[in-house]
């Protein structure tokens, strides 16, 4: 019996040792497959090589980002830059769009309310409503049924593309002027919700500025312009992101 026990133990011990020996490489392999590298321990490396977190690491090293700012920083939300005296851009006409008082959308603080789910409430009030030619079902049908909420720090809440406010990553696409306010319009990012809106209405974005354009006011005081077509006449519209309806602001 004792002999039998020894004979059975021997292969089991080999299995055990093999398993322990393999466990570290397996873990490392799994880590590499998981996205980037193995080894939990920091190893000596060239100065230019990326360092791996090791046993001495305590969480994430982001101390520069959590340290108090060296100098006073700009406001969190850098809004539309001041209206240039003569806005010049290769794509943007220098003539800003002029509005008469009767038809002009009110300034940001009292712009007509959206009728969607952004909490603005309100009714179109007899204004012309153009429904999305492509999606006319349940709210947010254009977005797989998922509610779209604006993300702060992005122009238009991110509806027109991932353009961070204050960052010149997007191409300026004209200006829309009001009494004391100038809205800067940017080029709509392909594959963004805004691009989907344009595609659904078969609209082509153009730089804001010239008269007789379709002007669509979107989330977070954003606006884009497009050439009119058979479905959408020239004029100003407010977007409802819930169903991509646009409501004419012209009485």
């Amino acid at each position, binding site marked *: 019996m004792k002999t039998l026990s020894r004979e059975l133990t021997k292969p089991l011990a080999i299995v055990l040792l093999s398993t322990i020996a393999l466990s570290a490489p397996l*873990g490392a392999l799994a880590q590499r497959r998981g*996205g980037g590298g*193995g080894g939990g321990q920091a190893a000596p490396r060239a100065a230019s090589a990326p360092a791996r977190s090791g046993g001495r690491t305590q*969480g*994430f090293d982001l101390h520069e980002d959590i340290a108090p700012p060296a100098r006073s920083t700009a406001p969190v939300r850098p809004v539309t830059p001041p209206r240039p005296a003569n806005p010049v851009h290769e794509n943007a006409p220098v003539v800003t769009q002029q509005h008469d008082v009767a038809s002009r959308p009110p300034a940001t603080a009292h712009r007509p309310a959206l009728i969607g789910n952004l909490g603005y409430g309100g009714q179109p009030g007899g204004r012309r409503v153009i429904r999305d030619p492509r999606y006319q079902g349940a709210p947010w049908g254009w977005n797989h049924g998922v509610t779209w909420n*604006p*993300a702060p720090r992005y122009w238009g809440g*991110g509806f027109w593309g991932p353009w961070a406010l204050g960052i010149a990553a997007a191409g300026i696409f004209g200006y829309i002027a009001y009494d004391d306010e100038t809205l800067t319009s940017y080029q709509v990012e392909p594959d963004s919700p805004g691009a989907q809106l344009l595609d659904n209405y078969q609209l082509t974005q153009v730089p804001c500025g010239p008269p007789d354009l379709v002007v669509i006011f979107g989330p977070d005081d954003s606006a884009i312009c497009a050439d009119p077509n058979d479905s959408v006449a020239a004029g100003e519209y407010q977007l409802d992101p819930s169903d991509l309806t646009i409501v004419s602001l012209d009485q």
Partner: protein
Amino acid sequence: MLIRTTAALAGAALLLAGSAIASAAGTATIVKSSGDTKIYDPVRIHMIGDSSVRIDSADGRGTLTIVHAACSFSGDLRRCLPYAVTLKQRGVTHPIEVERGTLYLNATDAALPLPHSSMKVPPHSIMLGLRTQRGTSISVTGRVDGASQ
């Protein structure tokens, strides 16, 4: 008795090996404005509702929480914009100012192509890239460990 002990140890070792694989959820890379780069591998990725992702360091001492919105779809791939990040470390929660970024989430069972790229996002995985206002780049890739409301 010896057989039982050996078998138990072997089982424990197998479990350890298995847990090492299971915990290898993702990788975080932090590149500072100076160019210094640190790779955190593995990290745990946890979805919190529809608006946040939590990234836990392997030692459990650091937690990045990324709040996102403006989620839309590119095919079945969900794309969101991160706008707020906090780092919880040593019991203190620090806000980190975000400049811009993009989060891709593949909640399907198949790999999905990343827009304008030949890369694919694996099933039930995320790809996150963001830049802070201090010029630090944070990227996270990997499989989602869990989700909660």
